């Protein structure tokens, strides 16, 4: 079977089909582990591991890092880090099958890639900060929280999307 990659690049799954499968994955995750999915947890573990390697004394003295440092075990040895590695593999397979792999900076033709990268960095910093304050991101707090009817999960979801709509006007030049 020959796949026309140029044509396939921007053909994505039907969102309801993707959402259905994602729901099944969340259900399976709860059935197996009793917990939901996550994404920002792996990045937190990476930061803890880096700080713990560079300055172990500082990491142990800090009230936040020290929560995640165990004796004789790397902070990277967590469920979410393995899951995040899987996400990278799975996305790489899907992108490879549809011919979407390649180094590029995606941005609106109205802005420069430098501007896109600056906003990506700023957005990342805010998201990293917010995910710590709320103890989870869109996957861990909002999506997995909603699956078990967690009040905090619903509040986080409403806060993320509500604020997104409130501030969307100020960032419109970046996208439309």
């Amino acid at each position, binding site marked *: 079977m020959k796949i026309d990659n140029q044509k396939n690049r*921007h053909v994505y799954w039907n*969102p309801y089909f*993707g*959402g259905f499968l994602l*729901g*099944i994955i*969340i*259900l399976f995750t*709860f*059935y*197996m*582990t*009793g917990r*939901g999915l996550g994404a*920002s947890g792996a*990045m937190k573990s990476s*930061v803890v591991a*880096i700080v713990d390697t560079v300055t172990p004394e500082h990491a142990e003295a800090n009230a*936040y890092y020290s929560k995640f440092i165990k004796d004789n075990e790397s902070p990277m040895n967590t*469920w979410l880090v393995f*899951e995040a590695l*899987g*996400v*990278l*593999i*799975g*996305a790489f397979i*899907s*992108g490879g099958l549809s011919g979407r*792999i390649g180094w590029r*900076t*995606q*941005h609106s033709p109205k802005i420069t890639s430098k501007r896109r*990268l600056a*906003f*990506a*960095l700023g*957005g990342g*910093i*805010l*998201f*990293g*900060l917010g995910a*710590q*304050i709320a*103890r989870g*991101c869109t996957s861990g707090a*909002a999506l997995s929280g909603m699956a*078990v*009817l*967690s*009040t*905090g*999960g619903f509040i986080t979801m409403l*806060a*993320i999307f*509500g*604020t997104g709509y409130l501030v*969307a006007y100020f960032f419109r030049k970046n*996208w439309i």
Partner: protein
Amino acid sequence: MGPLIPNGVIPYEWNSIIAIIIGIAFGFVLEASGFSSSRKLAGVFYGYDFAVLKVFFTAALVALIGILYMDYLGYIDMSKLYVHPTYLWGAIIGGAVMGIGFVAGGFCPGTSLCAVAIGKIDAIIYVIGIMIGVFIFSELYILFQPIYEGYFEGNITLMDSLGVNRYWFVFIFTIIAIIAFIVSDIIRKKQKKIFY
């Protein structure tokens, strides 16, 4: 009787392997749904692409209804599932900060990982940004501690907070989602098409 690993049906040693398998499925579905594209994700805020809304709410409802069914049929003990704890102001303020980050950066952490996997440079910068954000939070933890640890309401569900029957809640939530899907299609048809 689920959940399988906490109940010892599957040995704990399998945990990391299952984590990678689940991650692969998660990453594949996110990427195939188009979530490795920041312009597609941002569409939900400007009305030119509602994939985020559709995928997100379909997934939440399928998982929610599935868990309720499995609990009802006795395959899973819902009381043993981990319920994300509610720290009222942490959830609101953290969510608001994430909302600004979402519109500014065009990704959330899970989708940025998918975009990193297919070589998007903006996503790599975004992940570095997330790590800087975590670093700032940790270094200034004393400042954030009151919101992070305060206003703790417990591992409560909407049943505790609103006092509604969970089956009725899921039914109404499903109706709201279907209405939102229909309305989003109407809005999208009125918007200028954006190609990306």
